[in-house]
């Protein structure tokens, strides 16, 4: 189980980073989304992997997993969601300003 999750995290990270290194904005957005999945899983995994032990203190749930990483991941999801939305808007703006979708050839100064 641990190996599988770790492999998945690695896969997500690698694919995400590869896309982030592309030239087109849209690929970068995709890459960052993949990366954020990877990150969320790492953060989540820091509480270890347990099936059938939700952190709900209700009847019928005998074991509880670590709730803290889950709370952290939630925060991280929200933040990365906001970021994605912002990035998309920014990419559109940049496109509107420069008339193309890509970072290359920009005149930064």
């Amino acid at each position, binding site marked *: *189980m*641990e190996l*599988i*999750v*770790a*492999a998945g995290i*690695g*896969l*997500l*990270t*690698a694919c995400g*980073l*590869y*896309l982030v*290194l592309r*030239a*087109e904005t*849209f*690929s970068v*957005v*995709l890459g960052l989304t*993949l990366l954020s*999945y990877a990150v*969320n*899983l790492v953060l989540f995994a*820091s*509480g270890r*992997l*347990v*099936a059938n032990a*939700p*952190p*709900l*203190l209700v009847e019928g749930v005998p074991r509880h997993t670590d*709730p*803290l990483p*889950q*709370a952290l*991941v*939630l*925060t991280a*999801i*929200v*933040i990365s*969601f*906001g970021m994605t*939305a*912002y990035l*998309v*808007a920014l990419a*559109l*703006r940049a*496109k509107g300003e420069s008339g193309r*979708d*890509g*970072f*290359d050839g*920009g*005149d*930064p100064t």
Partner: protein
Amino acid sequence: MSVLIVLALMALLAGAALAPVAARFGRVRASQTAAAALIGALALLAPLAPGVLSGQVVVASWSWLPEWGLDLAFRFDGLSLLFALLILGIGLLIVLYASYYLPVADRMGRFLGLLLVFAAGMLGIVLSENILLLLVFWEITSVTSFLLIAYKYEAHDGRIAARMALAVTGGGGLAMLAGFLLLGHIAGSFELSDILARGAQIRAHPLYAPTLVLILLGAFTKSAQFPLHFWLPNAMAAPTPVSAYLHSATMVKAGVFLLARLHPALAGTELWFGLVSSVGAATFVYGAYVALLKHDFKGLLAYSTVSHLGLITLLFGLDTPLSVVAGVFHIINHAVFKASLFMAAGIIDHECGTRDMRRINGLFKYMPYTATLGIVAAGAMAGVPLLNGFLSKEMFFAEAIEHPHFGAHTWVLPVFATIAGTLSVAYSTRFIHDVFFNGEPINLPRSPHEPPRWMRFPVEILVLLCIAVGVAPQLSVGPLLDAAAGAALLGNLPAFKLSVWHGFNLPLVMSFVALAAGIVYYLNRRFLFELHERYLPDLQSPVAFERVYQAMTAAAARVMALVDSGAPRRYLAPLLVFAIALGLWAYWSAHPDGLALAGGAAGAPAGPLVQALALAGLAALAAGCLGVVACHRQRLLAIIFMSVVGLVVSMTFVLLSAPDLALTQISVEVVTIVVMLLALRFLPARAETAEPRGRRLRDMAIAGLAGGGVAALSYAMLTRPFETISNFYLANAVPGGGGANAVNVILVDFRGFDTLGEITVLAMAALGAHALVSGLRLAPYAGSAEREADRHPIMLAMLVRPLLPLALAVSLYILLRGHNLPGGGFIAGLVTSVALILQYIACGIDFGRARLPLDQPRLIAAGLAIAGATGLASWLFGAPFLTSAHGHVHLPLIGDVELASAMLFDLGVYLVVVGGTLLVLTELGALSRRELAAEGATREAATREPATQEPAPWN
């Protein structure tokens, strides 16, 4: 008493501040103010003079940054007195001179202000007891000299010359800073008294050599020593009063002052002798040689200044007590005759409108009085007897003969001295002969005549001084020289006698040989001129400096272009490589003997079924990930694959006991897809740019390495047991937080502050996106040509209508139950948003906006305010921010109702999420509406939904 030192400085600064003000009332007032400041400074120092002349050292000290060695400590001794007199006295003359020299249109406020600040800087240098303080003043002179040299800033060369001076002297100053820090470190103090007393200790220290070199670098640049001299001749672009002041009495003398000042601490070693005397000698000869070749008489004077500074440096380098005396003496003499020469030159320049000695000839006829003054001063420069220059040169010759360092080759130094003297005579002769005699002037812009009375006055004073010292040295400068040289030698003054006639001796012979040879040399100059002009291109001009500067910036620009092209991946690749490298280093530096990735923990007790499911999940994940990567150019497909990845991640959360995360992920996923699709509208369906294979491979390598690293680290972490604080949360969620969903209790209570930050982020993301999109016009790509007549498919439009109320009910349920069961404000907010967005998707933005006229920014503000106010409410109970309260309320008929303040907080979260999501999505959606509006309203009207006039209920 000692406070007078500071007051003198203050007087100058006050004058600097007042002069520009006074200039408003006319330049005479300004000059008077400046003169008053200088006189005031002199007067303030005067009471201290008698004591100092008798060998006393006055020290005044105030604490500033004692721990860092920087104190406001001042020192007034013989050397300071000498220089203070030069600075203030010549300064006074310069002020008078300048008021005639500068054009009447110049109100002189700026000039005098700068000049006085400069004078204050100079005075500070010579009055500093703390060497760091000395450095402060030192750099003030660099900066003000920059501004003074560029005073006539309309002139291109002047601007560059000023920067050149700044570059050289500023750079030297920094070297000196390093040297001073080392010196202070070695001596254990930054006070001159201590440093001068610890000379032996300093010279024995291993850091002595670098210290000396750095300090000398500072001194040499300031004093224009070869090969760092080139700034000085170029600085002649400055108005003549500036040249006269900076390059005779003050700035260039700062370097040699420093040699004199630190002589007791640093001199007395082979290194000192070798460095200082060789640089001085080289400068002496080089300056003299070049001076002769200059056609511009100011240039001639400038190089002669270089030469004389070389002489002074050489004298300090020879490092015998008598040579030091001679050096100090020559400082005085040079200041006096050079200042007068510059001023005379200024008059000539002023009267003739040119400085080219090939055109200015025979001026004696037109301005005999001025010419006489100039001839006398030049004579002093040449070392003609009965003038002051003769005396110090005589002392130099004497030292050259008696110097012990050359052992058997005793002839070396005298011969060198004679040659150098010959050269000085030659250029002095040229100045006198070319300017004042040598036929008639050629084609001058103006016809020269004598200057106004008071413009000559400063020159007269100085020339008188030249003669006075030359005729009666002991009477005129004896005590001052004793005091100054005594300070430079720390009181160990050798026996010497100042007199015009020392008898007929070898130095005198050398003087006459030099005089005669110099004149001969001058007469045969033509040949030299040709040689010089043919073979020695001017490497030291402003043009050259500017070219070097431009080359430097261009090179920097090329380097920066390599690393900073504005493309994110150019920044990202270093980040990733750096992270990988540092991570690997950190890993291996703890584990030098090899990898131990897997820990000993048993892992999750998962059944084979769960394992199999996980494996299936991994397969799906791989399909999704690779699909995204493979299809990232076909963007719609990439989005579809991305959704698969999101789904797998959600399922992972479901399987691994994280229902809240699963809910969040599922809902975020939907909104993310919609956002991406909205953006896709404005992008071509496929990316056109093809990337080179090499880059792709490189990126794959980086990404693969990073991915492998993260996987390895995650695996290492997952297989290790650890101790955590999280038991606390499980134990306290119900009793302390009033909720059974530990994750939600953490979010809204234990770590509610995080959540407050998080919704702030979300709010800002939405606002930022709003700001970005507003006013943006974009041309859509796909489908814009063939807009569907049926833009709002009926089945979708109709079926989402009952869905909205149902979905709202569900979201409300999720909001309320969140504290105890999976859910909460964020998920509920997303569900609400999605339900509303669905309306927009199905029926269009007009439909939605007409029915829900929400001011989303305000909704966001309200959400944030509610969340914040919930936190603040705890202040009323004397508890820290965000302290929660919860309890049961028993209502009739309904029964126990559990209430927690955290629920109110969650409501804030909910509102922010709804407001933010809607804001982003509607703004992005409205982008294509703008295009629609541009396309034409008629078609729009034809395809619109049957209009409904119901009033909007959510006002």
